[in-house]
């Protein structure tokens, strides 16, 4: 029998909303928004995979024993990867917005279906 874990499924629904936007929308700004939503859901999925029930943040405080910390903290590796991924996502979005501005200056529209003149 098929059984779906609720949290993972909701996260993937978010991913599918972004995918739907990329495939069907025509406005360049809407496409950028869909890509941001997909990025967010992927980052969230990585964090969900590294979570542990009733876990504490991976930051030691003074007087905490190492054994208790190791048995209680959530996964620090996925958090570090997600931190890198978020900042790279910002730079990618900056590049996409620059291209969208250029398209608007040239063709005077954000609608990607009206761009027919691709010659130099």
């Amino acid at each position: 029998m098929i059984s779906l874990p609720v949290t993972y499924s909701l996260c993937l629904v978010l991913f599918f909303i972004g995918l739907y936007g990329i495939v069907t929308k025509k406005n360049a700004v809407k496409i950028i928004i869909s890509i941001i939503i997909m990025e967010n859901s992927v980052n969230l999925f990585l964090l969900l995979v590294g979570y542990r029930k009733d876990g504490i943040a991976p930051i030691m405080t003074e007087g905490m024993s190492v054994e208790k910390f190791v048995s209680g903290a959530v996964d620090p590796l996925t958090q570090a990867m997600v931190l890198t991924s978020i900042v790279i996502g910002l730079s990618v979005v900056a590049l996409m917005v620059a291209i969208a501005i250029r398209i608007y200056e040239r063709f005077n529209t954000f609608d990607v279906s009206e761009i027919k003149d691709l010659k130099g």
Partner: protein
Amino acid sequence: MIELFLILNIIAAIIALESKNLLSSIISLGGVGFGLAIIMLFLGAPDVAIVQILVEVVLLIILIRSTIDRDHTRIKCHKEFFSLVTGGAFLGVMLIFVILALQDLPQFGTAMAFGPDRIIPSLEYLSGSLSETGAPNVVTSVLLDYRGYDTLGEATVLFAAIIGALAILRKTKAEKKSKDEK
């Protein structure tokens, strides 16, 4: 609690995609990002939550200042039948694979990296961070000590993206000439 905020996020994402007004769709995108930051706090990731909030603010400022007030903010909406069919087929096929993949995931809350029969770098990081690097914040010690070159590459990507944006937005000679003639 996490599920509640995720449902909120999904509603905000649908509004962001389906709204006819670009300004309201960008503000709904802010709803998605800030809701995500709250979920990250629930998941025990304060470092990532701080960076997520800051990046979301930067994205809103960039999108609003660079796109909104140079265009009419209401957009035309024409849907083509063929693209809808393509999108539906795409989503259906992806859905099958996703359901197959979800069967193999461990239950939520039992972290993958802590399983009994896996190679476990995370446990090494957790137990060795204070004695090996001297930093109580394990995320920082992974970023800056165990995987420092990863951070260097990431900083280089940021640098390259900004150089790319500058190169795309610069004025070419032809544009300057046409401006002078006007």
